[in-house]
């Protein structure tokens, strides 16, 4: 009986250690995130950003992101542009209400990291790599990344025209545990 208890205890402890190692920490997204986009002609932000962020610098293999941006929360500072951006000519917010990104792989890249995953915008899903930095500060941290998206890859708007094909996107997400 004593042996059984010791064996069970050891097994439980081993399972707990194993579980701790394979589950990376879940970060809670703070309120003061920034998801902005800009080109020469237009610029703005998306006001609603949600999702789950599991990230451990020491264990990238089990780290993962699954985040969404509400298309209808687009804010360009101009009502007419907002309406236009949400229309079927551009994002078609009624049919494709979210921009969705699910990570597949996170690797170290220089001083920062690179996440590769599936980016789905306007009903078009493509593999997309985003470079980002992870800066810890006290109990929290901030994920920050800047990258470019070619809107034609996702059939957003017509190619050419007044708005640049390549749009710069900046993301800064403060997180806490």
């Amino acid at each position, binding site marked *: 009986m004593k042996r059984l208890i010791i064996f069970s205890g050891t097994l439980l402890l081993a399972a707990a250690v194993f579980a701790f190692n394979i589950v990376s920490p879940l970060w809670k997204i703070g309120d003061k995130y920034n998801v902005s986009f800009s080109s020469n002609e237009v610029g*703005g*932000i998306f006001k609603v950003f949600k999702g789950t962020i599991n990230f451990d610098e020491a264990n990238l293999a089990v780290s993962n992101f699954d985040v969404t941006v509400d298309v209808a929360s687009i*804010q*360009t*500072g*101009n*009502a007419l*542009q*907002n*309406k236009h951006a949400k229309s079927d000519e551009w994002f078609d917010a009624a049919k494709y209400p979210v921009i969705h990104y699910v990570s597949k792989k996170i690797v170290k890249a220089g001083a920062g990291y690179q996440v590769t995953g599936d980016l789905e915008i306007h009903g078009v899903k493509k593999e997309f790599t985003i470079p980002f930095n992870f800066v810890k500060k006290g109990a929290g941290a901030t994920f920050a990344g800047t990258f470019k998206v070619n809107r034609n890859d996702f059939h957003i708007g017509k190619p050419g025209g007044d708005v640049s094909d390549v749009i710069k996107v900046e993301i800064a997400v403060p997180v806490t545990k």
Partner: protein
Amino acid sequence: MLKKLLILAVVSGILAAVASLVYQKVYAESLGDGFKNIISLQKIFVACIGANIVAAIGYFLLSKVLKGHTEAVFNILFAVITIATIVYPIGYKLPLDVEMPELFPGLAIPMHFFPVLGWMTLKPLFAKNI
């Protein structure tokens, strides 16, 4: 003549500014946002008085050319230019932290008409013989 026109411009500009402020207050109370950070009291007075001073100078210059038809032509021009200026608030880019930018044109567009209304309202009183 120019002096009378400038007095008319300043007084009708002040009237337009007061009307704009009253409208802004009513708008803010009924719809929740008067955009006071963007359309400040100072900007309202400068825009209303400035617009009517430009109008006064325009009227003066037109009167040198058109003689007897000045008022009719000027009124049409002033109204047309005023209507054309509504493009500005429609295309205006507000700060990104503004919650409801769609409410902005509804506030700013009517304000664009107050200087011309002030001018046409007070002209018979201030500068009847011009």
